[in-house]
């Protein structure tokens, strides 16, 4: 088991190097640091000195991949690519355009993100599975048919509509909770957070319920279910005990992988509700074209994704004793 995990972690290294290479080429090769400097300082009346200063402040003043006249280290290490990559792997993301430290910002902003993401994740998981089980219980009846149609309708509504409509209905017409905002104080924060959490859950209910329904229906057609029924077990027992347990493996595939990504927050939810999490951080960075932040978030996202993959594999062994990792039979 340990050997397997170590192997997977080592396998993650080339992937992260690949990610780094892709983002680096997107940000530094397509547009030379000079172009970025022009973009930020404005097109007109820019002196070469300003550009040099801008580049130096960010450490962009070295050659990209190969330095013919290295001042320190050798031709490959004294380059933008090498220095920037090394600091990424050390989780030192440097400074944003407004001079703030990105690593510090991220560590502060991940808490509001989690305060939304975790309740949304847990509650919608429970709700979706419950609904799916109910629909599966009444399969091939009108309940099933209507349930699927409602799911498809819910899926077809834009997530922006849920947010804008929810804000309008709950906050503006009914005045139940404030429209947007955040506070560090827990009691006030609950008031601010409850609406985004509800909207996050409602927005995912259609797709989620339908997805779990497919999984359950696939399980229901298997032989062990027929055996259980032949044994004389009640339909409820078959569904909730046998099918639910066996469906855990496909459910885990989708669920565990996203847990680490909860840190990243929800982009549009946070932005609409003015919650200072990582999602709104990313959107603000994209809008103000702050490349350093976007690069850091891309890297962070990839790391979390890979952690999710490893966690998925480990969780398989927990729910399904037939699966053994690392061992070669």
């Amino acid at each position, binding site marked *: 088991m340990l050997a397997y995990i170590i192997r997977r972690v080592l396998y993650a290294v080339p992937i992260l190097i690949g990610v780094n290479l892709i983002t680096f080429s997107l*940000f530094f090769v397509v*547009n030379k640091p000079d172009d970025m400097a022009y973009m930020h300082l404005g097109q007109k009346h820019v002196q070469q000195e300003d550009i040099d200063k801008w580049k130096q402040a960010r450490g962009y003043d070295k050659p990209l991949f190969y330095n013919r006249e290295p001042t320190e280290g050798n031709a490959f290490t004294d380059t933008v690519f090498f220095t920037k990559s090394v600091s990424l792997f050390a989780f030192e993301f440097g400074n944003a355009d407004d001079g703030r430290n990105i690593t510090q910002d991220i560590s502060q902003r991940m808490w509001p993100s989690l305060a939304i993401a975790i309740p949304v994740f847990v509650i919608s998981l429970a709700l979706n599975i419950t609904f799916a089980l109910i629909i599966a219980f009444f399969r091939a009846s009108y309940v099933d048919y209507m349930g699927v149609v409602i799911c498809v309708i819910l*899926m077809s509504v*834009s997530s922006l509509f849920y947010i804008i409509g929810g804000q309008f209905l709950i906050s503006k017409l009914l005045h139940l909770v404030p429209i947007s905002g955040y506070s560090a104080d827990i009691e006030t924060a609950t008031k601010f957070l409850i609406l985004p959490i509800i909207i996050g859950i409602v927005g995912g209910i259609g797709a989620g319920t339908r997805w779990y329904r497919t999984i359950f229906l696939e399980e229901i057609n298997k032989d062990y279910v027929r055996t259980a029924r032949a044994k004389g077990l009640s339909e409820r027992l078959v569904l909730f005990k046998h099918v639910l347990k066996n469906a855990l493996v496909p459910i885990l595939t989708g669920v565990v992988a996203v847990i680490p990504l909860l840190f990243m927050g929800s982009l549009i939810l946070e932005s609409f509700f003015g919650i200072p999490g990582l999602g709104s951080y990313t*959107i603000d960075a994209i809008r103000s074209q702050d490349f350093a932040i976007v690069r850091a978030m891309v890297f962070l996202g990839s790391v979390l994704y890979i952690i999710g993959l490893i966690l998925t594999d480990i969780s398989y062994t927990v729910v399904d004793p037939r699966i053994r990792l690392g061992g070669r039979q």
Partner: protein
Amino acid sequence: MNRTLIPNLFLFGFILIIVVLVSTMEEVLQIKFVPLWTDILIYVLLVVVLLFTIQARHKEHLRAPWRHVVQRPLAMSALVVLAFYVVIGLLDSVHFRQALQAQEGQTETQHSGEVVSLFDVLVTPIRVRHEKSYSAPFAAYLFSKETIETPEGQVRDYPRLLYGGHHLKNPAQDRMPNLVMGVFLSFVFTVLILLAVSAVVIWIVARRHKTSFADSMNAVTSGNSRVPLRAMLLTFAVICFFVVIGVMFADKYHILGTDKVGNDVLYLSLKSIRTGLVIGTLTTLIMLPFAVMLGIMAGHYRGWIDDVIQYIYTTLNSIPGVLLIAAAILSLQVYMANNPEMFDTVTERADLRLLFLCIILGITSWTGLCRLLRGETFKISQLDYIEAATAFGTGHTKTMVRHILPNVMHIVLIAVVLDFSGLVLAEAVLSYVGVGVDPITISWGNMINSARLEMARDPIVWWSLAAAFVFMFTLVLAANLFSDAVRDAFDPRITRSK
């Protein structure tokens, strides 16, 4: 030989007809075609789909699943709605520049700098009539008060609109009767059109099945025809009703109101259709060759080729989609800002950005399909007939193209139809984040993005948002319902109760 000759001839003839048609139309109508990249690709896609349809008609194993799709009323109603959107999208994908009024002593025709589409020309009334600012649907007055000069001096009141309700003498009295009359007339027209179309359809059915007209009519009206014609005709009637209302009122009112700068919201909503369709279809068209080729190669060759391909898609997959798109679009923005000389018109620049968005969306979304195909190819290559092919000395390429590809096509088809609606929805979110289509491209995302603060106004301006959401919802719902039917028919894992 015959099998490849006919499609080739068809294609050749098609191109020839297009070339002749384009040159004569440029002569006669004095216009200059401006083929945008996305236009060309859309029509290429159309031709490919038509060729596939012609091919599939003669193959029983391809026709059988489609027959299941065709029998589902919900799916066929959705198809009628989709067809309506597609027609508008196709009309909106023929761009040209119109000739300017000839000056005296001028021999050569000058062309206007504005690029318009065939659809623009058809809906000229709602395209060119701008109001000053917001106005509600079917309004005769502006939405906010202004200072108006009257013979008695200055008054603060709601000014009349320049175009909306212009024909009314006294809007307060005449507007309602005028509207009711119009809706009633539209209803009558719709019923007439429905009757005429139904008669033609029933006549065709009767001829095909060699039954009497009355028998076919019975079958259709009771919902017993093999193709659910009743559902399709009713859907057609609903669409028809809206179109007739549109035609009836378009030159008298702003049916869905106007936005902040006075543009007709109906026009914006209809123009957004093309953007949505382009993103939904071209993205898949662009990603498909890579996903299919790499997926099948990984499953077929295995070994180090499999490792490399797996590495590529795991790497791409591990970057969160929105962030990769954001990163790519941001670099593109900088690149375009620094190289303005590459684009002749703003339309062309916006179009290239749209195409690039499709490409980058394709890059983020091909990995799922690639993995599915790899797994399926794995399974297939262990079957006896592949072994037999290898034993006969069939080469790798031929095995993959002739023996594996046709047997994984159902996965490709399901992926394509399932992806469509997600992509249309993604456009809105990306435009909100600021990494979607160009700000000058008319799209539902841009409409929502520019209108989202209007909900905070008092009284609220709801029509822009509502129009964008309703148009988008209709397209996505129709696509979802249709793709559900396609998946049910083609997915061998789903056991049909038949």
